[in-house]
């Protein structure tokens, strides 16, 4: 729309017409442009429109948006991560290295220094793909089972007397060897678990961090203030939601939370089972009847194989499951 063809029309305009007119809006949006010059000129010739124009301008100028423009540094760190991703060629290596680079820049954005990666020569990192479980033996020969779509990083060498530290994103089960020697710590984005002896499960998914202790004793400390340290006993389960800083502390049957490492789920609700399948197989589930999510599925569901799990669910729920690409819809029969 050019000024010429609007000439004449604007004389009949009221406030509502002005605010909805794109050419008028351009005056507010680009106050230095040629449009602005045109309008200033038009105003001189139409003083009777002064009130309407002023009111329209005031309304459009009254609005503004919350701004969240990141720093130059944040942008440069992100660029460095992407460059690294472009530079590395071998597929598996690339996946891991860029992820860590990204994590480093992210956490820096969040203002936490601890995630900065060390040199790759001294650091070991693993990332599991969807549907992949991986058992790892840590430098002190403690055992760790990394669940699907999770990432872990730790130093290749653990020096005696120094803390044994692990950085985790996703879910893992730990069976820790002798604790006497030096402290064993698992860091997630929002909290740190310090092992005072034992087996436990950490789950950092969907923004929340969940810790379930099977045996022994662990201490939790939170990255952000607000919650004091917490010592957990076997059967304890905590869930921390960083968005609200809410902390839930309950007791449970640990097997229920750790059985995924044997690729099965015991006594879970349908919602929990679908969450696992989504996280581990990269699928999206749609429940036609959302109340089904609360439905308790007794017994054991095997997670080994997606098709088997789906078949079991359709039988137990008496429901039809239809799959379209990565989305699976569950409809009661």
């Amino acid at each position, binding site marked *: 729309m050019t000024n010429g063809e609007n000439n004449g029309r604007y004389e009949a305009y009221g406030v509502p017409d002005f605010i909805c007119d794109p050419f008028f*809006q351009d005056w507010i949006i680009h106050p230095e442009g040629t449009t602005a010059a045109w309008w200033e000129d038009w105003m001189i010739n139409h003083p009777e429109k002064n009130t309407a124009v002023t009111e329209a301008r005031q309304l459009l*100028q009254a*609005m503004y948006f*919350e701004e969240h423009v990141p720093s130059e540094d*944040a942008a440069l760190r*992100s660029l460095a991560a*992407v460059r690294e991703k472009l530079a590395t060629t071998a597929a598996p290596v690339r996946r891991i290295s860029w992820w860590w680079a990204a994590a480093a820049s992210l956490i820096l954005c969040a203002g936490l220094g601890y995630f900065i990666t060390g040199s790759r020569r001294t650091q070991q990192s693993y990332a599991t793909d969807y549907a992949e479980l991986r058992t790892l033996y840590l430098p002190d020969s403690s055992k760790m089972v990394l669940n699907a779509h999770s990432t872990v990083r730790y130093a290749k060498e653990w020096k005696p007397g120094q803390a044994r530290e692990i950085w985790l994103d996703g879910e893992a089960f730990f069976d820790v060897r002798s604790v006497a020697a030096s402290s064993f710590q698992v860091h997630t984005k929002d909290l740190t678990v310090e092992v005072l002896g034992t087996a436990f499960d950490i789950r950092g998914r969907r923004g929340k961090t969940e810790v379930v202790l099977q045996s022994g004793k662990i201490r939790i400390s939170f990255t952000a203030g607000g919650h004091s340290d917490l010592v957990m006993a076997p059967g304890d389960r905590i869930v921390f939601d960083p*968005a609200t800083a809410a902390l839930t502390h309950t007791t449970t049957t640990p097997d229920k939370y750790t059985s995924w490492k044997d690729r099965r789920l015991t006594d879970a609700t349908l919602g929990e089972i679908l969450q696992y399948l989504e996280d581990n197989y990269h699928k999206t589930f749609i*429940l036609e009847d959302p109340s089904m999510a609360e439905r308790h599925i007794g017994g054991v569901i095997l997670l080994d194989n997606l098709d088997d799990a789906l078949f079991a669910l359709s039988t137990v729920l008496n429901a039809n499951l239809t799959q379209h690409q990565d989305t699976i819809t569950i409809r009661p029969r």
Partner: protein
Amino acid sequence: MYNSLETNIWTLISSGDQDAYARLYVYYYKRLYNYGRKFTDDPVALEDTLQEALLTVWTGRERLPQVDKPHTYLISTFRYILFKKLRRDHRVVRLTAVEAGEPEFGIDQLLIRRDIESALRQRLEQALKTLTSRQREAIFLRFYEGLSYEEVAAIMGISVKATYKIMSRSLLQLKETLSLPILTILLLLRGLI
């Protein structure tokens, strides 16, 4: 707020200029982050989306000359990836809650300037709350990002006609609150006379 970019930046990138890509990366990183942040404050989702969207510019640089409006195209690619990611991350919510809606353009992201007279400001703020997520997003793209109606339409995946409708409906909604008191004052005066 953002340093400006040279007009031939896309041509430079399509010919393989890495420095030009770096300049573009930093520029759009800030700009798109600001936009995406209106829908989520999850730094992981934002960073992943930014990297993914901006990476497509470099990996697809040879096809850039065929892209009609690379600026609009990049914003809409970013939006598409972000929405996909957010929908996926909010699956839990969907399993338990009823609706599988679109990501929300935060209600607290659109504000009224403080220098506006306080009674009027309150009324305008009240009116802003009645706008939908899509109305807020359209206003953002038009008045904050300074995009044309055609560009807003392309990014939001709606027709230009629908964009006009959304925009004027939102603005008139605000206008309503503005004119109401003036009307009352007039009636009052007439009554006195």
